[in-house]
């Protein structure tokens, strides 16, 4: 027979054990550290639902050579698709046409269809000088839900590419709009004006059977990055002769910004990865949270994945720059930048976006929670140097040779194309320093 006192003793011991367990282990573990802000400008905006397109056709006399009464040149075919590409690319759209040169003149009652005829390029108000900057300075250029398409041979007045670049930078890049430039070679028979500082003119006729002799014209497409890319896709699907001689300059070169989403974590040293340091209920793929377990040889190695946007300039992933913002958490003041914390942290790039993050816990300024925001961008020399526009650039040092022998004139090239594109790329780099990754590491010491 079991004695009652034994049963009472067992029950008493059990209750005491339960109490001890709950009182020691039931503490709250969440520290209510704020999660990083989500920067919506990091994400590429989607294609506009409603779009108003403004199409400007360069009607200076140099352009006349692209038009032939007898056959449909690539230029004429492109003009015929410019409108339909807008209609097929957007559900709701409006299109306004203009001709430009010295002045900008609106084209009403479908007058733009006349651009396939030579008379279109004989208007006295427009035919002499090419002022592309006037078009770019129009109020509706690079505004919301708008797309500006400029059809031109890029023979800017006085060959002033710096002026053009500055206007594009101020009007579009600095307002987070993108610049797309599509080069198309076309059959040509006419006179090219404004060659060189002295504005020489040369006759040029392309060989219809040799596309290398075709004279280039350009579509400058200005608007939201997604709209610019979509417009190019629409043109490309309608015009078989369009190659990938297209580039987009914008703040976006990858989308989305690389994060820990899909990243492989190859090594963790002296750290335990946790999920309860920051006060958020949902998982943020930009964030990794760690508890520091050791004093030395602490860090991790991870390979981030990124999706480069099509038509942006390719970059060398071995030439990257990193910006690190280190902060220490204070329960009263929140996160504050801390230089000691920054010095305790460094990143090595082992290969491409394979990061080796090293932390020296002993040099951290005390126990607590630290956050590191890591922004990775291609460095200036990371952008690869061979582009289609290098081959299309007109070498002005040959101008004397062309003057002596006008038949040797290289009409298949564009004056100052390379400096223009390089200037534009540099302006974009300086304005945005396009990012490829933004990640956050939280460490609890």
């Amino acid at each position, binding site marked *: 027979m079991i004695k009652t006192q034994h049963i009472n003793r067992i029950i008493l011991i059990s209750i005491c054990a339960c109490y001890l367990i709950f009182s020691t282990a039931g503490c709250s573990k969440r520290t209510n550290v704020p999660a990083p802000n989500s920067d919506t400008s990091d994400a590429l905006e989607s294609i506009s639902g409603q779009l108003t397109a403004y199409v400007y056709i360069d009607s200076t006399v140099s352009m006349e050579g692209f038009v032939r009464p007898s056959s449909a040149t690539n230029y004429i075919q492109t003009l015929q698709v410019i409108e339909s590409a807008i209609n097929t690319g957007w559900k709701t759209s409006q299109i306004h046409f203009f001709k430009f040169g010295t002045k900008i003149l609106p084209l009403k009652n479908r007058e733009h269809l006349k651009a396939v005829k030579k008379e279109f390029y004989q208007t006295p108000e427009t035919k002499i000088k090419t002022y592309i900057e006037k078009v770019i300075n129009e109020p509706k250029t690079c505004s919301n839900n708008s797309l500006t398409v400029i059809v031109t041979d890029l023979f800017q007045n006085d060959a002033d590419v710096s002026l053009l670049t500055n206007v594009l930078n101020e009007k579009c890049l600095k307002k987070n709009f993108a610049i797309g430039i599509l080069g198309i070679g076309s059959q040509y028979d006419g006179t090219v004006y404004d060659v060189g500082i002295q504005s020489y003119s040369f006759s040029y006729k392309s060989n219809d059977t040799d596309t290398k002799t075709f004279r280039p014209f350009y579509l400058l497409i200005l608007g939201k990055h997604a709209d610019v890319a979509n417009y190019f896709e629409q043109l490309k699907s309608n015009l078989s002769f369009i190659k990938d001689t297209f580039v987009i300059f914008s703040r976006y070169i990858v989308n989305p910004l690389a994060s820990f989403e899909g990243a492989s974590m190859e090594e*963790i040293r002296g750290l335990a990865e946790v999920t309860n340091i920051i006060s958020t209920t949902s998982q943020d793929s930009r964030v990794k949270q760690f508890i520091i377990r050791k004093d030395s040889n602490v860090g991790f190695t991870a390979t981030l994945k990124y999706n480069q946007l099509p038509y942006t300039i390719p970059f060398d992933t071995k030439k990257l720059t990193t910006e690190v913002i280190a902060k220490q958490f204070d329960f009263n003041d929140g996160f504050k930048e801390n230089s000691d914390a920054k010095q305790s942290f460094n990143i090595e790039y082992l290969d491409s976006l394979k990061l080796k993050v090293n932390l020296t816990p002993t040099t951290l300024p005390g126990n607590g929670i630290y956050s590191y925001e890591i922004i990775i961008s291609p460095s200036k020399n990371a952008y690869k140097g061979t582009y289609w526009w290098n081959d299309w650039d007109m070498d002005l040092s040959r101008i004397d040779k062309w003057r002596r022998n006008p038949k040797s004139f290289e009409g298949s090239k564009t004056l100052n194309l390379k400096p223009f594109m390089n200037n534009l790329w540099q302006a974009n780099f300086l304005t945005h320093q396009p990012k490829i990754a933004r990640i956050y590491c939280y460490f609890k010491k």
Partner: protein
Amino acid sequence: MIKYVVHFVGILIISAGFYLLANLVEKDLFLERLVIPPPGVKLPQWLDSFKFWANWGITASVGAVLLWYLIAQWGFKVNHWSESGKRVIWGLFFILPVIVIILGFVFTQQAQESGWLAYLFYILNGLACYYLATALFSPSSFKYTPLWAEKIRRW
């Protein structure tokens, strides 16, 4: 009748004690503070895996205890007090928790540091739960069948 109730309540208390020990002491006080999981595995994930296998280890033990109790109480015939020893059968019931412990060893990802503690806890919980519950609350006829039960059972 009261005897059976007391035995089952005792088994229940011991098993509850082991569940609490595994989930609140071993997991939260030791493993959470010491373990470094392998790369790509977050600590809560790893601890969940420990919790799963630790709880199943204890559940297997409780199952073994109940089986032992039922068989000992109603399955064995006792003709004489001295013939009541069924220690080998009692020992065989260890197999049940041992199987789950081995599964726990296999399916718990190998931690970089302090992972051995989890394996130790699996063994401790699985075997100690069965041993204590049977040593303290076996049917009266077989109360000394568990090894060293005569030293710890005073009723």
